[in-house]
Protein backbone atom coordinates (compact mmCIF):
# COMPACT_ATOMS: atom_id res chain seq x y z
CA UNK A 1 0.00 0.00 0.00
CA UNK A 2 1.12 3.53 -0.69
CA UNK A 3 0.19 6.55 1.36
CA UNK A 4 0.85 10.21 0.72
CA UNK A 5 1.86 12.48 3.50
CA UNK A 6 2.74 16.11 3.82
CA UNK A 7 5.86 16.91 1.86
CA UNK A 8 9.13 17.89 3.43
CA UNK A 9 11.85 19.91 1.81
CA UNK A 10 14.97 17.82 1.67
CA UNK A 11 17.43 20.69 1.36
CA UNK A 12 17.09 24.40 1.81
CA UNK A 13 15.78 26.00 -1.34
CA UNK A 14 14.58 22.81 -2.97
CA UNK A 15 11.06 22.73 -4.30
CA UNK A 16 8.18 21.15 -2.45
CA UNK A 17 7.51 17.52 -3.11
CA UNK A 18 5.03 15.05 -1.80
CA UNK A 19 6.75 11.96 -0.47
CA UNK A 20 5.00 8.64 -0.84
CA UNK A 21 5.48 6.00 1.81
CA UNK A 22 4.43 2.41 2.24
CA UNK A 23 1.95 1.50 4.93
CA UNK A 24 1.77 -1.67 7.00
CA UNK A 25 -1.29 -3.92 7.42
CA UNK A 26 -2.79 -1.53 9.95
CA UNK A 27 -2.34 1.48 7.69
CA UNK A 28 0.60 2.96 9.58
CA UNK A 29 3.22 4.60 7.36
CA UNK A 30 6.47 2.65 7.36
CA UNK A 31 9.91 3.24 5.89
CA UNK A 32 12.22 0.53 4.55
CA UNK A 33 15.77 0.84 5.81
CA UNK A 34 19.02 -1.11 5.47
CA UNK A 35 20.33 -3.03 8.49
CA UNK A 36 23.85 -1.60 8.32
CA UNK A 37 24.05 1.10 10.99
CA UNK A 38 25.96 3.54 8.84
CA UNK A 39 23.62 3.24 5.86
CA UNK A 40 20.63 3.43 8.15
CA UNK A 41 21.94 6.61 9.75
CA UNK A 42 22.63 8.16 6.34
CA UNK A 43 19.16 7.27 5.12
CA UNK A 44 17.45 8.76 8.18
CA UNK A 45 19.49 11.97 7.89
CA UNK A 46 18.61 12.16 4.21
CA UNK A 47 14.87 12.00 4.85
CA UNK A 48 15.21 14.45 7.74
CA UNK A 49 14.46 11.94 10.45
CA UNK A 50 17.35 13.01 12.66
CA UNK A 51 18.72 15.94 14.61
CA UNK A 52 22.06 15.22 12.96
CA UNK A 53 23.12 12.52 15.40
CA UNK A 54 22.61 8.76 14.91
CA UNK A 55 19.23 7.39 15.93
CA UNK A 56 17.84 4.02 17.01
CA UNK A 57 15.54 2.54 14.31
CA UNK A 58 11.94 2.63 15.59
CA UNK A 59 10.82 -0.91 14.88
CA UNK A 60 7.32 -2.03 15.91
CA UNK A 61 8.78 -4.08 18.78
CA UNK A 62 10.73 -1.19 20.26
CA UNK A 63 7.82 1.20 19.90
CA UNK A 64 5.54 -1.41 21.47
CA UNK A 65 7.76 -1.61 24.55
CA UNK A 66 7.68 2.18 24.87
CA UNK A 67 3.88 2.20 24.64
CA UNK A 68 3.62 -0.23 27.57
CA UNK A 69 4.61 2.62 29.87
CA UNK A 70 1.63 4.79 29.01
CA UNK A 71 -1.93 4.61 30.25
CA UNK A 72 -3.09 6.18 27.01
CA UNK A 73 -4.19 4.47 23.83
CA UNK A 74 -1.59 4.40 21.03
CA UNK A 75 -3.91 6.36 18.73
CA UNK A 76 -4.85 8.97 21.32
CA UNK A 77 -3.93 12.51 20.26
CA UNK A 78 -1.75 14.37 22.77
CA UNK A 79 -1.70 17.71 20.96
CA UNK A 80 -1.52 19.40 17.59
CA UNK A 81 2.14 20.31 17.30
CA UNK A 82 3.07 23.59 15.68
CA UNK A 83 4.22 24.94 13.32
CA UNK A 84 2.11 22.76 11.00
CA UNK A 85 -0.32 21.43 13.61
CA UNK A 86 0.11 17.74 12.88
CA UNK A 87 -1.78 15.56 15.34
CA UNK A 88 0.74 13.97 17.71
CA UNK A 89 -0.50 10.54 18.75
CA UNK A 90 0.99 8.60 21.66
CA UNK A 91 2.47 6.20 19.11
CA UNK A 92 4.18 8.95 17.09
CA UNK A 93 5.71 10.25 20.30
CA UNK A 94 6.87 6.73 21.20
CA UNK A 95 8.47 6.37 17.76
CA UNK A 96 10.49 9.54 18.29
CA UNK A 97 11.39 8.53 21.85
CA UNK A 98 12.79 5.23 20.56
CA UNK A 99 14.80 7.09 17.95
CA UNK A 100 16.22 9.40 20.62
CA UNK A 101 17.52 6.39 22.56
CA UNK A 102 15.04 6.52 25.45
CA UNK A 103 14.41 3.56 27.72
CA UNK A 104 10.68 2.69 27.86
CA UNK A 105 10.45 3.86 31.49
CA UNK A 106 11.36 7.42 30.42
CA UNK A 107 8.19 7.63 28.32
CA UNK A 108 5.82 9.00 31.04
CA UNK A 109 8.20 11.96 31.53
CA UNK A 110 8.16 12.74 27.81
CA UNK A 111 4.35 12.56 27.67
CA UNK A 112 4.15 14.96 30.64
CA UNK A 113 6.49 17.37 28.83
CA UNK A 114 4.15 17.47 25.83
CA UNK A 115 1.11 17.81 28.08
CA UNK A 116 2.85 20.87 29.54
CA UNK A 117 3.89 22.33 26.18
CA UNK A 118 0.37 22.14 24.80
CA UNK A 119 -0.83 24.82 27.25
CA UNK A 120 -1.57 27.98 25.31
CA UNK A 121 0.45 30.13 27.72
CA UNK A 122 3.62 28.23 26.85
CA UNK A 123 3.35 29.61 23.27
CA UNK A 124 5.05 26.65 21.60
CA UNK A 125 4.35 27.91 18.07
CA UNK A 126 6.11 31.15 18.98
CA UNK A 127 9.09 29.40 20.57
CA UNK A 128 9.84 27.10 17.68
CA UNK A 129 9.25 29.55 14.84
CA UNK A 130 10.85 32.69 16.28
CA UNK A 131 14.03 34.15 14.82
CA UNK A 132 15.27 34.31 18.43
CA UNK A 133 16.84 31.36 20.21
CA UNK A 134 14.52 29.68 22.77
CA UNK A 135 13.78 25.97 22.97
CA UNK A 136 11.85 23.99 25.58
CA UNK A 137 14.04 22.86 28.49
CA UNK A 138 12.81 20.17 30.89
CA UNK A 139 13.23 20.22 34.68
CA UNK A 140 12.08 17.05 36.45
CA UNK A 141 11.32 17.17 40.15
CA UNK A 142 10.40 14.20 42.33
CA UNK A 143 11.29 10.57 43.10
CA UNK A 144 10.54 9.14 39.63
CA UNK A 145 13.48 11.14 38.22
CA UNK A 146 15.86 9.30 40.54
CA UNK A 147 14.16 5.98 39.82
CA UNK A 148 14.86 6.20 36.09
CA UNK A 149 18.43 7.38 36.65
CA UNK A 150 18.15 11.06 35.81
CA UNK A 151 21.15 13.11 36.82
CA UNK A 152 20.77 15.81 39.45
CA UNK A 153 24.35 15.93 40.70
CA UNK A 154 27.76 16.36 39.05
CA UNK A 155 27.44 18.09 35.66
CA UNK A 156 23.71 17.44 35.43
CA UNK A 157 23.10 20.15 32.83
CA UNK A 158 25.66 18.49 30.57
CA UNK A 159 26.41 15.10 28.97
CA UNK A 160 26.86 11.76 30.71
CA UNK A 161 23.38 10.77 31.82
CA UNK A 162 21.39 8.67 29.38
CA UNK A 163 18.03 9.77 30.82
CA UNK A 164 18.87 13.50 30.72
CA UNK A 165 20.38 13.19 27.26
CA UNK A 166 17.62 11.19 25.61
CA UNK A 167 14.49 12.64 27.25
CA UNK A 168 15.48 16.13 26.12
CA UNK A 169 16.49 14.74 22.78
CA UNK A 170 13.14 12.97 22.36
CA UNK A 171 11.45 16.36 22.67
CA UNK A 172 13.77 17.91 20.09
CA UNK A 173 13.50 14.97 17.69
CA UNK A 174 9.72 15.10 17.89
CA UNK A 175 9.77 18.79 17.04
CA UNK A 176 12.27 18.28 14.21
CA UNK A 177 11.22 14.97 12.71
CA UNK A 178 7.54 14.79 13.51
CA UNK A 179 6.62 18.48 13.46
CA UNK A 180 9.00 19.56 10.68
CA UNK A 181 11.15 22.09 12.56
CA UNK A 182 14.17 21.97 10.31
CA UNK A 183 16.46 25.03 10.48
CA UNK A 184 15.26 27.66 8.00
CA UNK A 185 12.12 25.64 7.37
CA UNK A 186 9.88 25.03 10.38
CA UNK A 187 12.20 26.81 12.78
CA UNK A 188 13.74 30.19 11.99
CA UNK A 189 16.16 30.77 14.85
CA UNK A 190 18.98 33.00 13.69
CA UNK A 191 21.74 31.01 15.39
CA UNK A 192 19.94 28.72 17.88
CA UNK A 193 21.98 27.38 20.81
CA UNK A 194 23.45 24.02 21.91
CA UNK A 195 20.67 23.56 24.50
CA UNK A 196 18.41 22.72 21.58
CA UNK A 197 20.00 19.25 21.32
CA UNK A 198 18.81 18.52 24.84
CA UNK A 199 18.43 20.47 28.06
CA UNK A 200 16.89 18.19 30.64
CA UNK A 201 17.90 17.63 34.25
CA UNK A 202 16.49 16.57 37.60
CA UNK A 203 16.26 18.48 40.83
CA UNK A 204 18.40 17.17 43.69
CA UNK A 205 16.04 15.66 46.25
CA UNK A 206 18.16 14.32 49.10
CA UNK A 207 20.91 16.92 49.31
CA UNK A 208 18.38 19.76 49.19
CA UNK A 209 17.69 21.92 52.24
CA UNK A 210 14.65 23.60 50.67
CA UNK A 211 11.15 22.54 49.71
CA UNK A 212 11.42 20.70 46.38
CA UNK A 213 10.02 22.35 43.26
CA UNK A 214 7.21 19.82 42.77
CA UNK A 215 6.06 20.44 46.37
CA UNK A 216 6.28 24.20 45.78
CA UNK A 217 3.86 23.76 42.85
CA UNK A 218 1.46 21.72 44.97
CA UNK A 219 2.42 18.21 43.77
CA UNK A 220 4.02 16.80 46.96
CA UNK A 221 3.14 13.22 46.04
CA UNK A 222 3.90 13.39 42.33
CA UNK A 223 6.94 13.80 40.18
CA UNK A 224 6.58 16.88 38.00
CA UNK A 225 7.89 18.03 34.66
CA UNK A 226 8.42 21.75 34.13
CA UNK A 227 9.00 23.19 30.66
CA UNK A 228 10.73 26.52 30.19
CA UNK A 229 11.58 28.41 26.98
CA UNK A 230 15.34 28.44 27.65
CA UNK A 231 17.69 30.46 25.48
CA UNK A 232 21.08 30.23 27.15
CA UNK A 233 22.83 29.70 30.43
CA UNK A 234 25.62 31.26 32.43
CA UNK A 235 27.55 29.53 35.17
CA UNK A 236 28.33 31.82 38.10
CA UNK A 237 31.39 31.19 40.25
CA UNK A 238 30.77 32.42 43.81
CA UNK A 239 34.06 33.72 45.14
CA UNK A 240 32.95 35.80 48.11
CA UNK A 241 32.19 34.07 51.37
CA UNK A 242 28.79 35.50 52.24
CA UNK A 243 25.32 34.70 50.95
CA UNK A 244 24.37 38.34 50.34
CA UNK A 245 27.43 38.81 48.16
CA UNK A 246 26.45 35.75 46.11
CA UNK A 247 22.93 37.06 45.66
CA UNK A 248 24.18 40.38 44.33
CA UNK A 249 26.27 38.60 41.70
CA UNK A 250 23.27 36.44 40.74
CA UNK A 251 21.16 39.57 40.22
CA UNK A 252 23.81 41.22 38.08
CA UNK A 253 24.28 38.06 36.01
CA UNK A 254 20.54 37.74 35.47
CA UNK A 255 19.92 41.35 34.45
CA UNK A 256 22.09 41.78 31.39
CA UNK A 257 21.36 43.69 28.19
CA UNK A 258 20.58 41.67 25.07
CA UNK A 259 18.36 39.12 26.74
CA UNK A 260 14.63 39.02 25.90
CA UNK A 261 13.81 39.76 29.53
CA UNK A 262 15.43 43.18 29.08
CA UNK A 263 12.35 44.28 27.16
CA UNK A 264 9.78 41.59 27.95
CA UNK A 265 10.28 40.75 31.66
CA UNK A 266 9.31 37.21 32.62
CA UNK A 267 10.36 33.83 33.95
CA UNK A 268 14.03 33.13 34.67
CA UNK A 269 15.65 30.04 36.19
CA UNK A 270 18.24 29.84 38.90
CA UNK A 271 19.97 26.52 39.52
CA UNK A 272 22.01 26.48 42.73
CA UNK A 273 24.35 23.75 43.93
CA UNK A 274 23.51 21.99 47.24
CA UNK A 275 26.43 23.79 48.93
CA UNK A 276 25.14 27.17 47.85
CA UNK A 277 21.61 26.33 49.01
CA UNK A 278 22.86 25.24 52.43
CA UNK A 279 25.03 28.32 52.73
CA UNK A 280 21.99 30.53 52.05
CA UNK A 281 20.34 28.88 55.06
CA UNK A 282 23.33 28.98 57.39
CA UNK A 283 24.36 32.53 56.50
CA UNK A 284 21.29 34.66 57.19
CA UNK A 285 18.64 31.94 57.03
CA UNK A 286 17.54 32.87 53.50
CA UNK A 287 14.34 31.10 52.47
CA UNK A 288 13.42 30.53 48.82
CA UNK A 289 10.76 33.24 49.08
CA UNK A 290 13.21 35.79 50.45
CA UNK A 291 15.72 35.04 47.71
CA UNK A 292 13.07 35.39 45.00
CA UNK A 293 11.99 38.72 46.45
CA UNK A 294 15.58 39.93 46.61
CA UNK A 295 16.25 38.93 43.00
CA UNK A 296 13.00 40.55 41.81
CA UNK A 297 13.97 43.80 43.53
CA UNK A 298 17.60 43.82 42.49
CA UNK A 299 17.84 42.17 39.08
CA UNK A 300 17.29 45.48 37.28
CA UNK A 301 19.02 47.79 34.86
CA UNK A 302 18.60 51.55 34.46
CA UNK A 303 15.99 52.46 31.83
CA UNK A 304 18.37 55.03 30.36
CA UNK A 305 20.90 52.29 29.60
CA UNK A 306 18.32 50.07 27.89
CA UNK A 307 16.76 53.03 26.07
CA UNK A 308 20.21 53.94 24.75
CA UNK A 309 20.48 50.35 23.48
CA UNK A 310 17.45 50.93 21.31
CA UNK A 311 14.68 49.24 23.26
CA UNK A 312 12.86 52.58 23.03
CA UNK A 313 12.06 52.03 19.37
CA UNK A 314 10.86 48.47 19.85
CA UNK A 315 7.08 48.46 19.79
CA UNK A 316 6.95 45.25 21.74
CA UNK A 317 8.65 46.54 24.87
CA UNK A 318 6.61 45.33 27.85
CA UNK A 319 8.03 47.12 30.86
CA UNK A 320 5.79 47.63 33.88
CA UNK A 321 4.24 51.04 34.39
CA UNK A 322 6.69 53.47 35.90
CA UNK A 323 9.75 51.88 34.30
CA UNK A 324 9.57 53.93 31.13
CA UNK A 325 10.93 57.08 32.75
CA UNK A 326 14.52 57.75 31.75
CA UNK A 327 15.82 57.52 35.33
CA UNK A 328 13.74 54.45 36.35
CA UNK A 329 15.09 50.97 37.01
CA UNK A 330 13.69 48.22 34.76
CA UNK A 331 12.94 44.86 36.44
CA UNK A 332 13.79 41.64 34.61
CA UNK A 333 11.13 39.69 36.52
CA UNK A 334 7.45 40.69 36.70
CA UNK A 335 7.16 39.39 40.27
CA UNK A 336 9.21 37.28 42.72
CA UNK A 337 7.34 34.21 41.46
CA UNK A 338 8.95 34.60 38.03
CA UNK A 339 12.13 33.09 39.47
CA UNK A 340 12.20 29.31 39.18
CA UNK A 341 14.67 28.05 41.80
CA UNK A 342 15.96 24.48 41.86
CA UNK A 343 18.84 22.78 43.63
CA UNK A 344 21.05 20.69 41.35
CA UNK A 345 24.74 20.04 40.88
CA UNK A 346 27.64 18.43 42.67
CA UNK A 347 27.89 18.52 46.48
CA UNK A 348 31.33 20.13 46.44
CA UNK A 349 31.42 23.62 44.98
CA UNK A 350 29.94 27.12 45.19
CA UNK A 351 28.41 27.49 41.75
CA UNK A 352 25.05 28.66 40.45
CA UNK A 353 23.67 28.70 36.92
CA UNK A 354 21.27 31.25 35.49
CA UNK A 355 19.11 29.88 32.65
CA UNK A 356 17.86 32.77 30.51
CA UNK A 357 14.51 32.52 28.79
CA UNK A 358 12.30 34.04 26.13
CA UNK A 359 10.87 36.23 28.89
CA UNK A 360 7.20 37.16 29.07
CA UNK A 361 6.46 35.66 25.66
CA UNK A 362 6.31 32.19 27.20
CA UNK A 363 5.14 31.05 30.63
CA UNK A 364 6.73 28.05 32.34
CA UNK A 365 4.30 25.15 32.77
CA UNK A 366 4.44 22.34 35.36
CA UNK A 367 2.61 19.00 34.97
CA UNK A 368 2.62 15.83 37.07
CA UNK A 369 4.05 12.65 35.56
CA UNK A 370 1.52 9.84 35.25
CA UNK A 371 3.40 6.63 36.07
CA UNK A 372 0.32 4.45 36.60
CA UNK A 373 0.73 2.88 33.15
CA UNK A 374 4.18 1.58 34.04
CA UNK A 375 4.36 -2.19 34.16
Amino acid at each position, binding site marked *: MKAKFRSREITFGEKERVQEVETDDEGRPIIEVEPDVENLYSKLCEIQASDGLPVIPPTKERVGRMLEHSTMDATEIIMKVPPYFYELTVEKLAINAVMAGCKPEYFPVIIAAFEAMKEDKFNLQGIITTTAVPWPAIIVSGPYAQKIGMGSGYGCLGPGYRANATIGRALTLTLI*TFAGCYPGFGTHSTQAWPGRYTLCFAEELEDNPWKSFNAEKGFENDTTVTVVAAKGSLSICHLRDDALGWLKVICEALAIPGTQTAYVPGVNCLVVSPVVAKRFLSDGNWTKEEIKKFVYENARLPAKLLLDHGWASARYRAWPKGSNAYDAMVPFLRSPDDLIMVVAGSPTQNYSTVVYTWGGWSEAVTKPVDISGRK
Partner: protein
Amino acid sequence: MRESIFGFSFEPLVHYFLQKSAVSSLYENFNKYTTAINSTKNEEEEFSLSNKEVVFRNTSILSPFGELRVEPIEPRQRLNAVTGKIIGLLDANKPNGDVVMGIIQNYLSQRGVRDFISEVKPVVTRPAPDSIIKKLSKADAIVLSFADCGSCTTGLAMDQAVLEREGVPTVAVVTSFFAAHYARIAESMGTPHLPIVVVEHPLGDGATREMAQKKAEKIPRNILEALTFPANDLKEKYSARKWIELRSEL
Protein backbone atom coordinates in the same frame (compact mmCIF):
# COMPACT_ATOMS: atom_id res chain seq x y z
CA MET B 1 30.24 -25.28 1.41
CA ARG B 2 30.22 -28.34 3.56
CA GLU B 3 33.26 -28.98 5.66
CA SER B 4 34.48 -32.14 7.35
CA ILE B 5 35.78 -32.26 10.85
CA PHE B 6 39.26 -31.77 9.36
CA GLY B 7 38.36 -28.28 8.33
CA PHE B 8 38.08 -28.94 4.58
CA SER B 9 35.90 -31.06 2.31
CA PHE B 10 36.90 -34.50 1.05
CA GLU B 11 34.01 -34.48 -1.37
CA PRO B 12 35.79 -33.38 -4.58
CA LEU B 13 38.51 -35.92 -3.90
CA VAL B 14 35.98 -38.76 -3.47
CA HIS B 15 34.17 -37.67 -6.64
CA TYR B 16 37.38 -37.77 -8.58
CA PHE B 17 38.41 -41.25 -7.41
CA LEU B 18 34.98 -42.83 -7.81
CA GLN B 19 34.49 -41.41 -11.31
CA LYS B 20 37.88 -42.70 -12.37
CA SER B 21 37.39 -46.11 -10.75
CA ALA B 22 35.62 -49.01 -12.33
CA VAL B 23 33.08 -49.28 -9.56
CA SER B 24 30.54 -46.97 -11.22
CA SER B 25 27.54 -48.43 -9.38
CA LEU B 26 29.18 -47.46 -6.15
CA TYR B 27 29.73 -43.98 -7.53
CA GLU B 28 26.05 -43.65 -8.48
CA ASN B 29 25.00 -44.59 -4.99
CA PHE B 30 27.42 -42.14 -3.49
CA ASN B 31 26.13 -39.48 -5.83
CA LYS B 32 22.52 -40.05 -4.77
CA TYR B 33 23.55 -39.98 -1.14
CA THR B 34 25.47 -36.70 -1.40
CA THR B 35 22.71 -35.05 -3.47
CA ALA B 36 20.23 -35.95 -0.75
CA ILE B 37 22.46 -34.45 1.92
CA ASN B 38 23.15 -31.39 -0.23
CA SER B 39 19.49 -30.69 -0.87
CA THR B 40 18.59 -30.74 2.83
CA LYS B 41 21.58 -28.58 3.65
CA ASN B 42 20.72 -26.12 0.89
CA GLU B 43 17.13 -25.85 1.97
CA GLU B 44 18.24 -25.20 5.50
CA GLU B 45 20.74 -22.62 4.35
CA GLU B 46 18.23 -20.90 2.12
CA PHE B 47 15.69 -20.86 4.90
CA SER B 48 18.03 -19.28 7.42
CA LEU B 49 19.21 -16.77 4.80
CA SER B 50 15.71 -15.65 3.91
CA ASN B 51 14.94 -15.34 7.60
CA LYS B 52 17.88 -13.02 7.98
CA GLU B 53 16.63 -11.00 5.04
CA VAL B 54 13.32 -10.47 6.75
CA VAL B 55 14.93 -9.38 9.98
CA PHE B 56 17.82 -7.33 8.67
CA ARG B 57 17.79 -6.50 4.98
CA ASN B 58 14.18 -5.34 4.84
CA THR B 59 13.85 -3.69 8.19
CA SER B 60 10.65 -1.71 8.39
CA ILE B 61 10.57 1.21 10.76
CA LEU B 62 7.48 3.15 11.71
CA SER B 63 7.38 6.57 10.10
CA PRO B 64 8.24 9.29 12.63
CA PHE B 65 6.75 12.03 10.44
CA GLY B 66 3.68 14.12 11.12
CA GLU B 67 0.83 13.96 8.64
CA LEU B 68 -1.41 16.77 7.50
CA ARG B 69 -5.11 16.02 7.91
CA VAL B 70 -7.07 19.13 7.10
CA GLU B 71 -9.60 19.85 4.36
CA PRO B 72 -8.44 22.91 2.42
CA ILE B 73 -10.85 25.74 1.62
CA GLU B 74 -10.77 28.30 -1.19
CA PRO B 75 -10.28 32.04 -0.53
CA ARG B 76 -13.44 33.98 0.29
CA GLN B 77 -15.36 35.86 -2.37
CA ARG B 78 -13.71 39.25 -2.91
CA LEU B 79 -15.42 42.65 -2.87
CA ASN B 80 -16.59 44.34 -6.07
CA ALA B 81 -15.06 47.57 -4.79
CA VAL B 82 -13.96 49.02 -1.48
CA THR B 83 -16.14 52.10 -1.90
CA GLY B 84 -18.57 52.46 0.99
CA LYS B 85 -17.14 49.40 2.78
CA ILE B 86 -15.80 48.90 6.28
CA ILE B 87 -12.20 47.64 6.25
CA GLY B 88 -10.57 45.95 9.24
CA LEU B 89 -6.89 46.69 9.86
CA LEU B 90 -4.87 44.28 12.01
CA ASP B 91 -1.46 45.67 12.94
CA ALA B 92 0.92 42.86 13.99
CA ASN B 93 2.67 45.29 16.36
CA LYS B 94 6.05 45.19 14.67
CA PRO B 95 8.37 48.22 14.61
CA ASN B 96 7.35 50.49 11.67
CA GLY B 97 3.93 48.82 11.71
CA ASP B 98 2.28 52.22 12.08
CA VAL B 99 4.15 53.55 9.03
CA VAL B 100 3.09 50.67 6.79
CA MET B 101 -0.53 50.54 7.98
CA GLY B 102 -0.78 54.33 7.76
CA ILE B 103 0.09 54.30 4.06
CA ILE B 104 -2.38 51.48 3.35
CA GLN B 105 -5.15 53.18 5.30
CA ASN B 106 -4.54 56.48 3.56
CA TYR B 107 -4.76 54.86 0.11
CA LEU B 108 -7.92 52.93 0.93
CA SER B 109 -9.71 55.95 2.37
CA GLN B 110 -8.95 57.83 -0.84
CA ARG B 111 -10.72 54.98 -2.67
CA GLY B 112 -13.89 55.68 -0.72
CA VAL B 113 -13.72 53.29 2.24
CA ARG B 114 -16.51 54.25 4.63
CA ASP B 115 -14.87 53.27 7.89
CA PHE B 116 -12.00 51.34 9.43
CA ILE B 117 -11.83 48.95 12.39
CA SER B 118 -8.23 49.31 13.60
CA GLU B 119 -6.69 46.79 15.98
CA VAL B 120 -3.12 46.27 17.17
CA LYS B 121 -2.07 42.82 18.42
CA PRO B 122 -1.14 43.01 22.11
CA VAL B 123 1.58 40.35 21.80
CA VAL B 124 3.59 40.20 18.61
CA THR B 125 4.66 36.54 19.01
CA ARG B 126 1.17 35.06 19.40
CA PRO B 127 -2.05 34.90 17.39
CA ALA B 128 -4.51 37.71 18.13
CA PRO B 129 -6.88 37.12 21.06
CA ASP B 130 -10.47 36.05 20.30
CA SER B 131 -11.82 39.48 21.26
CA ILE B 132 -9.87 41.15 18.42
CA ILE B 133 -10.86 38.45 15.90
CA LYS B 134 -14.49 38.99 16.88
CA LYS B 135 -14.32 42.76 16.35
CA LEU B 136 -12.51 42.43 13.02
CA SER B 137 -14.81 39.78 11.59
CA LYS B 138 -17.56 42.41 11.42
CA ALA B 139 -15.61 44.22 8.68
CA ASP B 140 -16.30 43.68 4.95
CA ALA B 141 -12.63 42.92 4.32
CA ILE B 142 -9.43 42.85 6.39
CA VAL B 143 -5.80 43.92 5.87
CA LEU B 144 -3.16 42.31 8.12
CA SER B 145 0.26 43.95 8.36
CA PHE B 146 2.90 42.69 8.61
CA ALA B 147 4.93 39.47 9.01
CA ASP B 148 8.72 39.83 8.91
CA CYS B 149 10.04 37.35 11.50
CA GLY B 150 9.47 33.79 12.67
CA SER B 151 6.92 33.89 15.47
CA CYS B 152 5.07 36.95 14.10
CA THR B 153 4.71 35.21 10.72
CA THR B 154 3.24 32.13 12.39
CA GLY B 155 0.85 34.25 14.45
CA LEU B 156 -0.29 36.45 11.58
CA ALA B 157 -0.85 33.54 9.18
CA MET B 158 -2.95 31.86 11.87
CA ASP B 159 -4.96 35.07 12.30
CA GLN B 160 -5.55 35.42 8.56
CA ALA B 161 -6.62 31.77 8.25
CA VAL B 162 -9.09 32.17 11.12
CA LEU B 163 -10.55 35.35 9.60
CA GLU B 164 -10.93 33.76 6.14
CA ARG B 165 -12.65 30.81 7.77
CA GLU B 166 -14.96 33.30 9.48
CA GLY B 167 -15.98 34.26 5.94
CA VAL B 168 -14.20 37.60 5.50
CA PRO B 169 -11.93 38.31 2.49
CA THR B 170 -8.41 39.17 3.70
CA VAL B 171 -4.96 40.13 2.52
CA ALA B 172 -1.69 40.17 4.47
CA VAL B 173 1.66 41.91 4.01
CA VAL B 174 4.65 39.56 4.32
CA THR B 175 8.38 40.11 3.75
CA SER B 176 10.21 38.04 1.14
CA PHE B 177 12.24 35.88 3.55
CA PHE B 178 9.13 34.74 5.38
CA ALA B 179 6.71 34.24 2.49
CA ALA B 180 7.44 30.50 2.18
CA HIS B 181 6.98 30.00 5.93
CA TYR B 182 3.77 32.00 5.76
CA ALA B 183 2.56 29.75 2.94
CA ARG B 184 3.26 26.59 4.90
CA ILE B 185 1.38 27.81 7.93
CA ALA B 186 -1.48 28.82 5.60
CA GLU B 187 -1.52 25.34 4.10
CA SER B 188 -1.49 23.71 7.54
CA MET B 189 -4.46 25.83 8.57
CA GLY B 190 -6.38 24.50 5.55
CA THR B 191 -6.23 27.80 3.67
CA PRO B 192 -3.42 27.25 1.15
CA HIS B 193 -4.34 30.20 -1.06
CA LEU B 194 -4.36 32.97 1.52
CA PRO B 195 -3.78 36.18 -0.45
CA ILE B 196 -0.50 37.89 0.47
CA VAL B 197 1.41 40.91 -0.83
CA VAL B 198 5.14 40.31 -0.55
CA VAL B 199 7.61 43.11 0.24
CA GLU B 200 11.38 42.85 0.13
CA HIS B 201 12.83 42.00 3.57
CA PRO B 202 13.43 43.82 5.99
CA LEU B 203 10.50 46.01 6.87
CA GLY B 204 10.33 46.06 10.69
CA ASP B 205 13.35 44.82 12.67
CA GLY B 206 16.48 46.07 10.96
CA ALA B 207 14.71 48.67 8.78
CA THR B 208 14.57 52.42 9.37
CA ARG B 209 11.25 54.24 9.20
CA GLU B 210 12.35 55.80 5.89
CA MET B 211 13.14 52.37 4.41
CA ALA B 212 9.79 51.02 5.59
CA GLN B 213 7.95 54.01 4.13
CA LYS B 214 9.66 53.67 0.75
CA LYS B 215 8.78 49.98 0.53
CA ALA B 216 5.24 50.42 1.82
CA GLU B 217 4.44 53.10 -0.74
CA LYS B 218 4.71 50.46 -3.48
CA ILE B 219 2.07 48.12 -2.10
CA PRO B 220 -1.35 49.81 -1.62
CA ARG B 221 -2.47 49.12 -5.20
CA ASN B 222 -1.69 45.41 -4.70
CA ILE B 223 -3.64 45.42 -1.44
CA LEU B 224 -6.65 46.83 -3.29
CA GLU B 225 -6.29 44.23 -6.07
CA ALA B 226 -6.08 41.37 -3.58
CA LEU B 227 -9.32 42.54 -1.97
CA THR B 228 -11.20 42.96 -5.26
CA PHE B 229 -9.77 40.50 -7.85
CA PRO B 230 -11.93 37.63 -9.15
CA ALA B 231 -10.97 34.22 -7.71
CA ASN B 232 -8.74 32.94 -10.54
CA ASP B 233 -6.74 36.16 -10.94
CA LEU B 234 -6.37 36.32 -7.20
CA LYS B 235 -4.85 32.84 -6.98
CA GLU B 236 -2.62 33.53 -9.96
CA LYS B 237 -1.15 36.69 -8.51
CA TYR B 238 -1.55 36.68 -4.72
CA SER B 239 -1.87 33.09 -3.48
CA ALA B 240 0.59 32.37 -0.64
CA ARG B 241 0.93 28.87 -2.11
CA LYS B 242 3.13 29.97 -4.99
CA TRP B 243 5.79 31.31 -2.60
CA ILE B 244 6.74 27.77 -1.64
CA GLU B 245 7.73 27.15 -5.25
CA LEU B 246 9.27 30.58 -5.70
CA ARG B 247 11.45 30.20 -2.65
CA SER B 248 14.41 28.74 -4.50
CA GLU B 249 14.44 31.74 -6.82
CA LEU B 250 14.63 34.27 -4.01
